[in-house]
């Protein structure tokens, strides 16, 4: 359990990003489903991390090598292109403990893997279906309308269709 402190003198790097709260807000706006326990509450014991900005070529073994430095990995799910079933630059890493996931946020998020700065975020947990990209052409949305060339992520963006809501 993390030490109990009201507010630290410096920001903590093991907090969930705004993604989680924005997701919560969006869902609340969409319908009045009783969203309980709410997302923040779910993340309280989260053992899963979403990992983003991976190269399409980064393998499970590489991810395992780096992420196991924060604790034993229970499950690793690669993000796949919905149509081609090839890696599309993200994954879910599940640890056995919440503390390992927090440590990963603190010590690994924002460092490099395969020479790219990777992003980690606490996640409420993997569910079947979430391993697929949500972009129109099968990959992640961010790779649809990217205008810069990124050789690690398939070159230029594949399309520029907006209007698809990005879920990672």
């Amino acid at each position, binding site marked *: *359990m*993390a030490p*109990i*402190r*009201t*507010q*630290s*003198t*410096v*920001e*903590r*790097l*093991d907090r969930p990003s705004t993604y989680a709260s924005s997701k919560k807000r969006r869902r609340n706006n969409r319908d009045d489903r009783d969203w309980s326990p709410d997302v*923040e*509450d779910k*993340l*309280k014991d989260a053992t899963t991390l979403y990992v983003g900005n991976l190269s399409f070529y980064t*393998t*499970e*073994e*590489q991810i*395992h*090598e*780096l992420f*196991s*430095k*924060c*604790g034993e990995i229970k499950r*690793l799910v*690669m993000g796949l292109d919905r149509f081609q079933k090839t890696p599309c630059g993200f994954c879910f890493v599940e640890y056995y403990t919440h503390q390992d996931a927090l*440590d990963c946020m*603190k*010590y*690994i998020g924002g*460092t*490099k*893997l*395969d*020479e790219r700065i990777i992003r980690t975020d606490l996640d409420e947990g993997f569910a079947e279906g979430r391993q697929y990209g949500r972009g129109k052409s099968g990959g992640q949305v961010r790779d649809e309308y990217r205008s810069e060339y990124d050789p690690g992520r398939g070159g230029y963006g594949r399309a520029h269709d907006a209007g698809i809501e990005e879920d990672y």
Partner: protein
Amino acid sequence: MADVDVKQDGGDYKRRGRNNNRKRVYEDDDDDRDHYDRRGPPTQRRRHERSPRHRYEEPPRAKLRRLILNVASSAKLPEDEAAEIAAYLGEKYDEPGLVDDFFQLFIQLIIEQPFRIPVVAAVAFYGNYIKPEMTVDAVQAVAVKAQEALTAGNWRDFKQLLRCLACLQSVFEGEGVFALLRQLFDTVVDLQTANETDVVGIELVKIILLTIPYALVAGGDAFHDQARDLLKDTHIVAENMIPIEGMIAAYAGDTGAKPFEYHSLIGLLQKQLDSEAESGFELACILRFRPEVLRKEDSEEELLSAPPTLAFPAFDIPKPVNPGSKGVFPEAFFSVYANQETETVPNTTEIAGSLIRDVLVDTIDQLDFNREAVAKFLIDIDNYWAVNTFAKRGTAVDKLRENASDKAMWKSEDMLVDAIFSQMLKLPTPEHKLVYYYSIITQACKVAPAAIAPSLGRAIRFVYKNIDVMDVELVYRFLDWFAQHLSNFEFRWRWAEWANDTGLSNLHPKKAFIVAVLDKEIRLSFAKRIRATLPDAYHPLIPTSLDKDVPDFKYDNDQTPFAAEGKLLWQQFRKKEPDEVIQATIDEIHKKAEQFGIEDVLVPSTDAFVTAICRIGSKSLSHALSCVERGKERLMNIANSSDAARRQIVASVVEFWKDQPGVAVNLVDKLLNYTILQPITVVQWALEDHMGAGEALTQGWVYEMVSNTVAKVAKRNYQITESRLQKNLSQQQLEMVENAMMIGRTSSHELFKFIEDAVRGVAEGANEQLMEKQANGSLTEEEVLHLRAWAQRWYTTFERMAQVEKSVIGEEAIETKLKFMAAQPEPESHFEDVGNGMADGDGQV
């Protein structure tokens, strides 16, 4: 990051020597607006630019928070800032809620940002002149927290809070903090009398010794005798060496080649303070706070009236002393720069070395939740010590040498790298996960590459130079760090420097290190990429077979025994044929094997089966795991029926992945999780079947496989132990746990015994293959010596692991803990509720 985003004038590198303009103390309004402009909400800023009359006034609470969080990080003198905060707080003291908030923050700063303790304490010190109530409240707040930490055995927090009180020594009546230090020492005497290998007493002496200097600087000459008396007493504890200390030295062996003799942290401290005592306790590096800063310009004549003194808060030292939740071990001093030709860090005779190191280490360990802040604070560390303690930031070593005059000016970059290394390479275990220390080094290199990189380079060269005699666990930690560090910086390193060493025997510790680092680099990247970062001399170390997508499947070669059956088995397993079909092929192998006269027919069939699983699973880790799961039942049966066959499981995995041992290590680890393999099987395979003449001991991945296995068993045992220490176990639960503990102890003992026997054989030169290879000349004399030295180092490392584990799960250790628990008063039930409630709150901040 807002809270640490303080004034960065780029030339922050030159805080020293700015003009000492005391006038600014009470002219802070302009400064504040300046601050606010940079941080305030843009809307408010705009408004205030247009109509300066309605200028936004920062709420006192926010202003105080900002001032104290940034104290001593701007161009102002720390004493001016402390006085300024005290004055402002005094002015607003009656605002509701303000004081409570402030002191909460005050305490937090002491604990989370220990480098600021003297400045933070100075606020209370100046407060005594301005509004004595403030000092009373501050002391009270600190004392309450210090007592809590003392009761809980939370030694680091206790040390830091106590330091704050020591910095206020001049406001106390009589002996002040010395009375408490004396009281603490009496406790040490009790502890050591009761148990001569006691370690909590050592921790307490460390705290006493690290408190004295601050108390002397604040209290002045009047307390020198008190300090001398105390030092006379601490001697006996500080210079005593207890058995476990023989195992936490960074450098092993009795070769004269050790770069550093073992020094215990408190042994050094004692010597340093003794020599300070002789020279009149100069303690030059600690910041001073003079009351004169409070005098206003226009009232220069007016003398400050002597402020009131207050009684030192009473402390209750619990009996028995709570050893704390973390295991306490004596600490060894570690440095990669100390006592070298150019004095870039304090020599080990200098008290400054211990004082600054202590603060750096605490900053690192307390703030692990924000490595960006840690890296920044470490780089800024010169701001928090007396002027002229450090050379200008980023001064190159040769410049330092040129400028070396009477007084040494230390290199802050070296000191911070040294501090991080000392924690990363701390035995028996680091405070945090190793990867935390990696991340601060990476971060520091990002923030100040030009200043840090050369220091880091020198540290790496120092470790490499001495790697032959370094503890094996530390070598492994270091290479793991090195590879990951390089992976964050395009794998850039001056490999050419070590190119000659690629010609060494593979059994040489330097060559073995290089091979292991390259393997780790490849694991984080890929072979082709790593090859491209290396001079040609290294290329033979990265075989082209690594460029293939999947390793060779040995049954593709018809010369391999059982090639036909091996291939068939692979196809059948891949097509998920029913078990009977697979069994038929296996029976076929058994039949042939019998004809060949193979003793245990399960060996070749297991080899074929496991190799098939590896082949199908070679696509990715997930594929491998799903194959293992499909074959789990069969694998379990194999493992339960023959010793040779269960070892063959490990052998086949390693053989298939021989060029990428990282994958093999990982798969073996998963097989342990599935309980297909038992820990002892892995160790037996590694240190018997694979041992050879001891060559296995030189391979980084073998150490990794064995130490991972040992760690897995230890972790399990720790968990069981923890459940034993739960309160109110029922009789049935108690029996279950006791039984599990016994089994755990036995299997751990068996594991260590096996390892120690196996490596001792090589160390003593009694290993059969070693003798044979030595006799027939296939190993040179030098290689034999290397192997024996490797084995000796392995022995030390695993013996330590065994001792450490025993200190947690051993009967004696449990007994002590249970006794301590029994002596504690029952907590009232509402306590737990509060704890949970707060923990929930924590998640939502």
